[in-house]
């Protein structure tokens, strides 16, 4: 049970960063970025280039990859989303599907379909009583908690955080208070690009780097974000943890390879009963 809980927390933390990125872009741009999974894959491959092909240590490759993909995410916004900004959330959602397909095919074109692995030393798992924790899990725990802490501090205590929260809360009022929405949008894509790259690295560490890796996480990431309340970025983290733990605990009563059913069930139940999420507020359209 303790082991399942730890595994669930790690699985939840793996979902937390892309769910946070999805929720962050949704709260400011009011559209669900279907390409979040492909962002994760792209980031993972950029880091693979740095780590394996250029021989950088993983932390350096991850930092460089995150910075590079953050800029690419802003570029994608300029090319694909910005011209459609006033067309509504559904149009942007469809555009993001196109972006997702394009990115995945770019990856396949340059890197092929074979799974790849980062160049990291193999180490024995650590034991804490009955609980086993491998180095990848420890890296995920530390990296995600550190990233979440940085994002939370930015959100709560910085001028940039107030800008983002203001635009998410009330874009017109933010504009008349002197906040440029286009600047905030650029910052949001920068942060989302970094978060998805970091999550891509961690997923790659946990399993493999492959073109499909983002697709595998798409449904759980959306479910986690909706579970928290998709317009409430930090609540998406709670949603991710809840979902990760629920998936792991479900293996007590069903085979491991069926655990994706839990995600489906949670998603269906939420959409039927509480579509604004556990921590979100009800949306009212006038």
């Amino acid at each position: 049970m303790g082991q399942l809980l730890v595994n669930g927390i790690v699985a939840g933390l793996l979902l937390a960063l892309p769910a946070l990125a999805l929720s962050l872009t949704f709260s400011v741009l009011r559209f669900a970025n279907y390409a979040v999974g492909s962002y994760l894959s792209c980031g993972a491959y950029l880091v693979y280039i740095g780590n394996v092909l250029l021989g950088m240590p993983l932390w350096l490759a991850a930092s460089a990859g995150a910075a590079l993909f953050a800029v690419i995410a802003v570029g994608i916004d300029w090319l694909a989303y910005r011209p459609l900004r006033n067309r509504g959330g559904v149009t942007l959602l469809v555009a993001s599907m196109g972006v997702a397909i394009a990115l995945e095919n770019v990856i396949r074109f340059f890197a092929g379909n074979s799974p790849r692995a980062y160049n990291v030393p193999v180490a024995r798992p650590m034991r804490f009583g009955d609980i086993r924790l491998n180095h990848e899990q420890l890296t995920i725990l530390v990296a995600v908690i550190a990233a979440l802490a940085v994002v939370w501090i930015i959100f709560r205590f910085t001028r940039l955080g107030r800008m983002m929260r203001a635009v998410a809360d009330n874009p017109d009022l933010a504009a008349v208070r002197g906040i440029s929405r286009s600047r905030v949008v650029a910052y949001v894509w920068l942060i989302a690009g970094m978060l998805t790259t970091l999550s891509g690295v961690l997923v790659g560490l946990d399993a493999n780097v492959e073109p499909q890796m983002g697709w595998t996480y798409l449904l759980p990431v959306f479910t986690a974000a909706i579970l928290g309340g998709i317009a409430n970025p930090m609540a998406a983290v709670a949603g991710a943890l809840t979902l990760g733990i629920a998936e792991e605990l479900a293996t007590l009563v069903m085979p491991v390879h069926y655990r994706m059913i839990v995600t489906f069930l949670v998603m269906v139940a939420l959409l039927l009963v509480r579509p604004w999420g556990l921590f979100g507020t009800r949306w009212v359209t006038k």
Partner: protein
Amino acid sequence: MCDVVAGYGGHPILHGVSFSVRAGETLVVVGPNGSGKSTLMKTAVGLLRPISGQVLLGEANVTTLGAPARAARGLAYVPQEANIFRNMSVLENLQVGYEFVASRSAPSFGVRLDAVLDLFPEIRVKLRSTAGHLSGGQRQMVAMAAALMPEPSVLALDEPSAGLSPRNAEILFEVIGRVAASGVTLLIVEQNTRLGLGAADHGVVLVGGRIRLAAPAAEVLADPDIRRLYLGGV
């Protein structure tokens, strides 16, 4: 505003509206529902780009500038609804009101905070409260306070008394009077004509997107036709 035509989706709601507010004066725009008052206000503050015509702020033509750039030039705005950041604390609302607009030479945040809280002592004890949890009257005060934080030269208020009790509306207009006395130019859209025109130097009656009358506020209030036809016979 000079000969402004503005509306939504290419359909004009304002048809060639022209008026001006002198520095330090208060102008109130009144008119029946659907007359284009909110469209006028959105055009004035930069949330809506006019189809034609010009918007001037002082000597500068700001027609093509968006709301953030106009705010940086000293134009503050309090919308009728959704005029606070509901998920932020009152203090954060005031901080956001100040930090993205105030010039480098402006008084410090602390100085402005004290000055604004002197105008709205009721919110001093609510600084840590979530703004969305306040009463309607308190929210209106927070919205006004936030708009005043950067020491604007022009303050635009859209229906400031909407949703307030008569007593709260009177209190708010007392504060508006004090703001006006401090030299801030005020452009107010108001449905409570007696209260609005009572606090104004000049009045504009807007009907069907056109200016029906522009005159000193006392004259507008005294005009029997205007009172009977458009102002509910106040």
